[in-house]
């Protein structure tokens, strides 16, 4: 192979960069458009609100990325978020201890994740069905424990987790940023992250290269469960109660944010920058529509249209 006749290098390098940047380009353009076209969008207050609004999706998306990269997905996250909030609330009220509540919720999420992982990785049940089943069970559990009603939380110190700010940014936003950073680091820099991508790219080849496919998946689902539970705890702190019916359809939101960003549904392809782009694009669209006070019915149309527009633009950009 001979290196092809180089196009004018800077132009070419820019084109390459655009290609690699993928949806980040769309994100930047969208952000610019909203800054110009939407009043109040660029205000610090709104940006704070926007960051807070996407924080939960962001947290869970950072582990969902691993799930998708390994070629699976997890539909139970919405239910785990809700149930973890309920568990935290109930345990806190009974023991009076914030730590015990948080620990119980995290333990619960981890256990659900372990079950998911076990069923998907060891028993090799299709992830759609497996996590759909646990989603139902966990949601039912949340309703049963709470008797269908929100569980108010007594220890007020707990509300600090979701409602205080640090250096001007709300704590949940910091947590999300940490999840992004940590997730990106793990995916790119650790053996575990690379193994995840290999497992998603070709499980058979990964297995023959000595990667324990089942162990990788088990770990991912467990982390996913724990992360969803953690998000549920943060949410409960923000809501000052555990809500059994919250976050319906959250799983689809998280997965589509990832896929919108460019994570492959069939595994093997993904990076944290994709997730950040996907999550923020979704968040900005919603935020801008609210600021523009668009009729809710038209919001559906606009949301769909922008989603489609974003992927089409990305496609066109790469085809150029």
């Amino acid at each position, binding site marked *: 192979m001979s290196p092809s006749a180089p196009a004018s290098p800077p132009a070419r390098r820019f084109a390459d960069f655009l290609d690699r940047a993928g949806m980040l380009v769309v994100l930047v353009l969208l952000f610019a458009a909203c800054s110009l076209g939407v009043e109040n969008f660029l205000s610090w207050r709104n940006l704070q609100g926007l960051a807070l609004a996407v924080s939960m999706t962001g947290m869970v998306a950072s582990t969902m990325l691993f799930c998708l990269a390994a070629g699976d997905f997890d539909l139970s996250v919405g239910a785990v978020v809700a149930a973890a909030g309920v568990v935290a609330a109930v345990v806190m009220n009974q023991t009076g201890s914030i730590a015990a509540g948080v620990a119980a919720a995290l333990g619960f999420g981890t256990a659900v994740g372990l079950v998911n992982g076990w069923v998907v990785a060891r028993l090799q049940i299709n992830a759609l069905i497996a996590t759909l089943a646990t989603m139902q069970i966990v949601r039912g559990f949340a309703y049963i424990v709470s008797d*269908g009603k*929100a569980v108010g*939380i007594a220890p007020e110190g707990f509300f600090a987790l979701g409602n205080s700010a640090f250096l001007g940014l709300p704590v949940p936003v910091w947590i999300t940023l940490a999840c992004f950073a940590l997730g990106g680091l793990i995916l790119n820099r650790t053996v575990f992250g690379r193994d995840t991508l290999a497992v998603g790219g070709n499980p058979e080849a990964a297995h023959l290269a000595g990667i324990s496919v089942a162990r990788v998946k088990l770990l991912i689902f467990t982390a996913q469960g724990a992360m969803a539970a953690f998000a549920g705890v943060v949410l409960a702190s923000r*809501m*000052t109660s555990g809500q059994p019916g*919250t976050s319906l359809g959250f799983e689809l939101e998280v997965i589509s944010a990832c896929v919108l960003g460019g994570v492959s549904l069939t595994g093997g392809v993904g990076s944290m920058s994709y997730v950040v782009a996907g999550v923020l694009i979704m968040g900005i669209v919603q935020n801008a529509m609210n*600021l*523009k006070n*668009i009729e809710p019915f038209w919001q559906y149309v606009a949301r769909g249209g922008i989603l489609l527009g974003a992927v089409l633009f990305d496609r066109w950009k790469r085809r150029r």
Partner: protein
Amino acid sequence: GPKTETAAPAAAPKPGAVRIGFLVKQPEEPWFQLEWKFADQAAKDLGFTLIKNGAPDGEKVLAAIDNLAANGAQGFVVCAPDTRLGPAIVAKAKAAGLKLLAVDDQFIGPDGQPMAQVHYLGISARKIGAAVGETLAAEFKRRQWPVAETAVLAMTYDELATAKERTDGAIEALVAAGIPADRIHKAPQRTTDIPGALEAATTLLTRHPGVKYWLVCGNNDNGVLGAVRALEGRRIPVENAVAVGINGTDCIAELEKAKPTSFHGSMLLSAKAHGYRTAEMMYRWIKDGVEPPLDTRTVGVLITRENFRQVLREQGVRD
């Protein structure tokens, strides 16, 4: 166009112009659409900007409040997706410096008691349910159905606390009116739309083939309509069942049908009072410093095939 800022004469809000948010839990529901419509009317009449947001769960409510603050609103009216979100919403509103008025559902505090310190306009879910139960009981007595051949079909959706309150209220009223508790059958809906209710009701009817007369209540019009369709599917004669819904907006098509169905009527909630008056109260509060009363109650009105056109016209829902 999609933009519906109903700003007063000037399009761009002057500094000091009043902006009011109106957050509802189910923006797609006709009931909330109507509330918004009347709130819009108030905005036009009084000259303020109304910002409408849907907030189907707790997280979205908080995000929407952030949004309102960013958008320069001074206060908002809210129907929360869960009454226990009260403390969180109050805290958030305080942090953002927004005035707050709860509509439809009253906030519940951490102690499980209604948060009486939060301004509220609405109707008690349990009471509206009781009104349904009383209407059914009255029909039951008027038609002189034998108790032994009659049963209650209660469409439930316990996942929503307010929905449960309503059906519980209806059931309590029916029991109080002398229907034995063991003749009250609950059909839990899997989804809140008509097909979900239809499926639940159909199976319940299968379980009780011996019942001749049915009294139907539920959490809203859609649930009750699903039950009515199920009764029709089971070929129960129209006159052998009485169904009463709640909210009076989803059932208009049913009441307009040329041939009567088992759908007797619905407890119409006053969207005008809830939409227009809350918006107006909030405006006065912001503009003139007139604090609204802490607790304002409205009443439901039964609409039936006979009176619904007139009542709807009176309520301004229809012209």
